[in-house]
């Protein structure tokens, strides 16, 4: 399969990339890792007239903690997250997810920012960043702005990024003491989209849950925040009854569609099971 023709630009700075997007308007699309966009172009489901390739913009890659936040550059490869000692030691939810996105070859190209900007409801990082309460940095013709992950993800393959804007980085609050997270994904085989997956992040303070984030992957038209489950957990003692109650609420928040991977009922029940497993692991990781 051969993609349609397009004009190709490979800027080396963010400013050049923004200028190219401004010049070409709605004809242009940003190329990040290309592991979703290039397959779509081969199937002619996407036929952008102009591609602005960010792979040469080195300033968009990197993983660091500063000012109380973990900052992940938009062009950071999934494999870099997977191998990062900082991620492994402090952000177990991200580490869990980075090891199960697509397959190792795709992870060598695919990027954090590309994944979020693509806004696939089956994208793993959407629910991970939802659970973590992340925000994204955006650069555009009107200057820089910040969006919460909930503000960014609008619907299936839709974000609130405006024409000409580039998602530049993801910022995750540094975990407080007593925090833990986990990602549980059910997939038929490596590389398939999730049948269902659940991201959870909890914080325990003085014996009770002071904060909880739960994001659901591939069980609705977009990434879902299980708000009622989060609210039920917050203030609870995080005992097994509380986790089970939250898992039931997460399942109720899911809105899966039947496909080859399973029926609605099956997927909803898998959300319950995966939420419970993820919560148990998160609590264990939080310690105390």
């Amino acid at each position, binding site marked *: 399969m051969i*993609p349609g*023709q397009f004009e190709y630009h490979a800027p080396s700075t963010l400013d050049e990339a923004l200028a190219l997007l401004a010049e070409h308007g709605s004809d242009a699309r940003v190329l990040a890792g*290309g*592991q979703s966009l290039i397959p779509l172009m*081969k199937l002619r489901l996407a036929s952008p007239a102009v591609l602005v390739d960010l792979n040469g913009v080195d300033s968009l890659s990197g993983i660091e903690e500063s000012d109380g936040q973990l900052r992940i550059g938009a062009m950071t490869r999934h494999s870099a997250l997977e191998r990062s000692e900082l991620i492994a030691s402090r952000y177990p939810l991200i580490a869990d997810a980075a090891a199960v996105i697509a*397959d190792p*070859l*795709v992870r060598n190209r695919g990027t954090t920012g590309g994944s979020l900007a693509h806004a696939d409801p089956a994208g793993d990082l959407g629910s991970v960043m939802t659970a973590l309460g992340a925000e994204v940095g955006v650069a555009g013709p009107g200057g820089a702005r910040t969006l919460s992950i909930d503000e960014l993800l609008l619907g299936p393959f839709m974000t609130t990024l405006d024409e000409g804007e580039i998602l530049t980085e993801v910022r995750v609050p540094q975990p407080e003491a007593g925090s833990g997270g986990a990602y549980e994904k059910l997939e038929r085989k490596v590389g398939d989209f999730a049948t269902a997956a659940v991201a959870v992040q909890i914080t325990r303070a003085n014996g009770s849950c002071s904060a909880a984030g739960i994001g659901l992957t591939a069980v609705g038209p977009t990434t879902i925040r299980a708000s009622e489950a989060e609210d039920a957990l917050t203030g609870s003692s995080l005992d097994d009854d509380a986790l089970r109650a939250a898992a039931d609420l997460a399942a109720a928040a899911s809105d899966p569609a039947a496909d080859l991977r399973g029926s609605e009922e099956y997927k909803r029940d898998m959300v319950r099971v995966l939420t419970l497993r993820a919560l148990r692991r998160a609590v264990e990781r939080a310690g105390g």
Partner: protein
Amino acid sequence: MTQIEVTVNGAAQQIDVEPRLLLVHLIREDLQLTGTHIGCDTTHCGACTVLLDGVPVKSCTVFAVQANGSEVTTVEGLEQDGALHPVQQGFTEEHGLQCGFCTPGMMLTSVALLEQNQDPSEDEVRQAISGNLCRCTGYVNIVKSVQHAGRVIREG
């Protein structure tokens, strides 16, 4: 057309490409290196795996123009001065292939693994090759082949 400079198996090349040309087509059609296979064309199978600056990627999911300034290694580049690469020796000794279609991609992924880890466990091999599908072997002999190659490399 855009002119790119790409080093393939150690040989620098200047080639004019259409931006939409996929790296796998550059390799197979322009350079006539047909050891790189196309298995699915939908980014699932890993048969087209090559090393791009040492990193295994699916060459059906990278544009040739993106390889500008980079080094590409295909299966043809593994043999050096008539001697098989340890990974090729491993696949020979441990019968790591049946039909052979996935083998070039499997071997390039394995080369990259062994660069990082010369003594991978079975689990580590299986993780590393999980993006490369094999429909014949059941993977058992592929795992043995990669571990054999690791031994060859370790023993120098």
